[in-house]
Structure formats: C-alpha cells, structure tokens
C-alpha cells in the first residue's frame, strides 16, 4: 500500500440545493495528479462524483478546471499531496453538478 494519503474535501451538489462537503482519503504515489485521485474515487468509492475531463494527462482539453484551496487549477497538472486539500467547483461559472460547471462558450451550448 501507498504510504501517502491526501484527504480531499470535495464540494458536492447541484445548482438546485445546498451544497455539502464530502471527505475522501485517497492513497497516492508521489507524482500522482489530483485528477488521478478523483478518478480513483469514482472507480473505488463513489461513482456518482461528477467531474469533467477529456484528455486525462496532456493538459490539452482544458476541461478539468476547478478550485483547489480557493485557487483555480487544472486537476490534471496539480499534484496530490499529503494532508488536506479543499476541492470546489469554479466559482465564476454556473454550477452543474459537484465539480462540473458550465464552461462551454455561450454560443456552443444547446440551451443558451
């Protein structure tokens, strides 16, 4: 087992109701990204966690933007670290679900 554990405090919920914070302890190897951790949570602990990404590791799609400790980051280039990490959706975009926000340009949306 991995010696390292990140404690992710993740904001859950959609635009309709009150949000809540859910805590996940994520074991990791040095070098793993925040997105690695979120994908591990979905496959292991809670598949309902909503997070959007497409390229996984290349920082090409720019979809995995979210906030870590109040700062905007790409989950794919942010490394996991030991201890507490507070993950919230982008504050300046409409919330869709959990960490997913409405990031598409307005003229590329189905419902404008």
């Amino acid at each position, binding site marked *: 087992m991995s010696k390292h554990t990140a404690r992710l405090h993740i904001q859950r919920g*959609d*635009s309709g109701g009150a949000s809540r914070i859910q805590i996940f302890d994520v074991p990791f*190897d*040095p*070098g*793993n*990204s925040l997105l690695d951790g979120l*994908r591990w949570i*979905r*496959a*292991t602990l809670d*598949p*309902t*966690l*909503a*997070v*959007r*990404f*497409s*390229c*996984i*590791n*290349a*920082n*090409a*799609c*720019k*979809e995995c933007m979210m906030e870590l400790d109040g700062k905007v980051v*790409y989950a*794919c*280039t942010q*490394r996991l670290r030991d201890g507490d990490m507070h993950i919230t959706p982008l504050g300046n975009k409409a919330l*869709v*679900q*959990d960490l*997913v926000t*409405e*990031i*598409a340009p307005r*003229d*590329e*949306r*189905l*419902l404008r």
Partner: protein
Amino acid sequence: MIRLESDVLVIGAGGAGIFAAIAAARDGCRVHLIDRSLIGRGGATVMAQMTVAVALGEQCPDHWEYHLADTLKAGRGLCDPALAQLLCENAPLRIRELDAWKVGWARENGHLKQAFAPGHDRARCVYVDFLNTGPAVSRTLRAQLNRIDAIRRIGDVLITDIAVRDGEAVGAVGVHLVSGETVALKAKSVIIATGGLTRLYRRNSGSQNMGGDGYALALRAGAELVDMEFVQFFPIGHLAPRMIGMDPIMWDPFRYKLGGRLLNAKGEEFADRYGQAESGNYVLTRDVATYAIFKEVEAGRGSPAGGAYLSFAHVPEAELRHAFGPVIDRLAKNGIDLTKMPVEVAPIAHYHMGGVRVNALMETRIPNLFAAGEAVGGANGANRLSGNALSEAFVFGERAGTAAAARAKSRAAAGWNDKTAAPELDLLDTRTSGAAAPNNMAALVVELQALMADNVGPFRTEAKLRLALQRLEQLQRDLGPLPAGGEHYNMVRLDWFDLRNMLLVAQTVVLAAIERKESRGAHQREDYPGMLPEWELNQVLSWREGKLSLSRAPVRPNAQAVT
C-alpha cells in the same frame, strides 16, 4: 425532449468533424456540429504531438504516389487502395488550406519544413513547433468554424444512437449532459467523426472520449466495420517517472529530431535483434518497436517499470534546448533532466486502423450515413504510418462533408418521426424512471481496460482471446439492460452509455482477432507467427438481430492504376 433539425449532422468535433462541417456549410447546408465534450478540444486531434504526413515536395522532391506506396507497404497488403489513395492525393490540398488559415507550420529557408518519420521513404511530415501541432490545428479550425453562420456548434451532447427509418439514416438521438434532457436530432445526412477506441485499454494516448462510440453507433445502425483486429500500439509511450501535463506520446518528436537511443535494462540497444538496426537514426517502425520492447521485457531485460529506456544523454544540452525550447522546462518541472537520465517507455494504445466500412465518398452501406477520420477503417490496413492520422482526419472529413452535403441537397426532409426512433428513445426515457445502477460503472470501465490490455494487447493467443470473450460476456451482465436514471451531468448514467458501446466494440476486436490465425502488422499472434498469403483479406463485422456476425471480404481492388 429537445428537438433539432439540420441538413447535415456531424457527430464529433475533432479534426475530421470540423473539416466535414466546414465543407458541408461551404456547399450550402445548415450543419449541426455535435460533441460530447467541448468543441474542438476533445478527441485525438488536439493531442497530436508533431507529424502530419503529406507529399508537398517542399523539403525534397516528392509525389503523392510515393506517399501512397509507403502507406500501402505499411498496411501489409490490407489497405483499401481507393481510401489510401484519397488520403495521399488530397493531403496536400488540406495542408495548404491550413497553411492559408495560418496554422503556423514550421518553416526553414523559405519553405515548409518536413521531417523524416519511420516508414516513409523521405522527409515528408510537416509540424508545428514545439509539440504544438495538435493544439495549433485545433485552434485554427475553431477560428474557421466560428466564422461560419451556417454551422451551429453544440457541445455536451452525447449521441447514443443513429435513427434509421426504412434502412436509411434520418438523424440521431442522445443526451444533453448538462441538463440530462433527451435530444432528438433530425438530419438529411449524418457523419460519424468520433475517432477511435483507445479508451478500451488501460494505458492509452487518447482522450476519455475515444471509447469507440462511432463504431458502436454505426454497427447498431446497420453499417459494417472492417479490420477491427488491428489496434495500433505506440511503442514508446511514456511510462516512468510519473509525468503530468504532457501527452505520453511526446517522445516521438524527440526521436524525429534527435534520434535518441532505445536501451534495455543492461544498457544495450536491442532493435537490431528484431530485424531493424537504428544506428542513431529513428527508423524503427511502430509494429517492430512494440514487438522488440515486449520481447525484451519478457526476456527479463526490461526497465524497472516494465518497459525500455529511452536515452538522450549523449545529446548536448544546447542541442536539446534548440530543438525543444520550452518543453525542456516542462520536463524539468517533472524532475526530468534528459542530459543526465533516461526515461522509461512502453507500448501504449494509440490508434485504430479498423473502423466503419465506407466507399470512396465516405458513405456506409446505410444510405445517408457517412464516417470520417479515425472512425473510418481501411485506409491504413494492418498498420498505420506515423503522420497519416491527421492527414486522414482532414482529407476524409472534407470528403465526407462534401458528399453528405450533396446527399442532403438531393433529398426532401428526413423521414423522421418519434416512432422510428422508438427503441432508442425508450432507452433515453429512463432518465426519470431508471433504477439505480447495480454495479459501479466506473469500476467496470477500469476492469474492461485491464482485461483488454492484458489479453487483447499487441501479442495475442487463442487462450487469452477466449478468456477475454468470456469476461466480456460477464461484464455485459454486470452492465445490466438499462441505464441508471439521472440528470445534470449524471456520470453513472454516462458511464452506462459509454460501457454499452465499449463492450460491443471490444467484442468486435476480440472476435476478429480470434479468427485471424496469422501475424500481420499490429495483429501479432504468438500461436500463429508469420504472415500467411491466404490471410491477405479483410474481416468485416455486422450486427444482425442483436448478434455480431463476422465475415471475410477480399481486399478491394485498386481504384485506378497506381505506379
């Protein structure tokens, strides 16, 4: 239900889909360009690191017929010559078009710079520095798209099925991921441009979106798939140390520019043991390199993480900096100093040679249903040359868009009604009525990826393939017959629809791989080594009454004499 209507519906907004949309709009059609993700940012195009193969003759004299000869040779006798010719003959037009749109192809002494890539007989590949080909192409294509009013761009829509009436495509149905609403898209012609199937494998160089959607859509609509056993593994995908913010296939450009040395755990070069000596130049083709690395690992001469070493330690720092500029700093942030250490690399799922079977107008056997780009099978046969994927995306996209527009203009409104699409719409009606998922769908995806990597990789045996088939059946049971309900970016529901496609497509790969009892190009059977003349044929898959059926077809004859 949200209803949309267009002349031409394009599914997938990567390089092929965007070229298709632009071509259809240019010919006077109203186009809907749909993507499950953001427009022009998902898929494979944006991930391209460097090479685009095209016989421009800027670096040295060249002709598309030489490019075609190399493409056919790499395809080991299985290319559809008409598609391969289309790719090579038209690539110069599309590359010049992108140049006019200011993509920024690298230039030198007043001409476009063309690099040598393995399998090509001369320097033929244009690129954008530094590792910027994909992002630059995507940015350029998005800028063109935005100028065209006849194209409506719609992201965050997952197409779940093509709607077919009286044997003809009349549109598609899907889910608007943001709201969870069902979407019905009526169209006179439909183009599948969803890319390949790399997501079926644990380690892959593609994006999350590439789970073979288009293959499954085409099959269920009644179209055929061809060459599904040929999955290309990219031999030198990054393995260790863990590197973030960079594409795992990024070492290829380093090899194009600087050569580099591929070494085993003992520090020996080993490619010559497998028939191709390197001597400082990058000439190793993808299938041979993949084979060589696997065999070295198997013989106990692999690197600690289970691959080979790639070393540039012999290259002076100034030369590294000149060739790769800012990339060297990004590597440093990952703790990688190429002047001092090698990296570890291993084969990684990269591209699919197989795909939807089309004619030279990119039309499937289902009227009004077209395909473009990596979604198409046949142009590359049993193995694809480096640099041909983007050329294929651009050329086939433009061709599909033009042909689909001609079709749309020749027919009255599509014969859509909700009854036509009833079974497909019923599946989507589960939005509010669907039960909770019986299993963790995300875990099933991981299980499928492991299963495919371990048993349906580049080296295959009857026993492993049979095991894979059995376990795919189990996964199908674990998936269950209906998606979970849910709205607002419900990932469990999304995973269900993805797995539904991935499991079907995985089956097509396994069935074709079991049947082909020889080794050719990207399909290597350890129990049937060697290429057999009687297997110089294509395998075709279709879907009849809920069952896959596999048949053989002779390789299509040359469209015209090729010298």
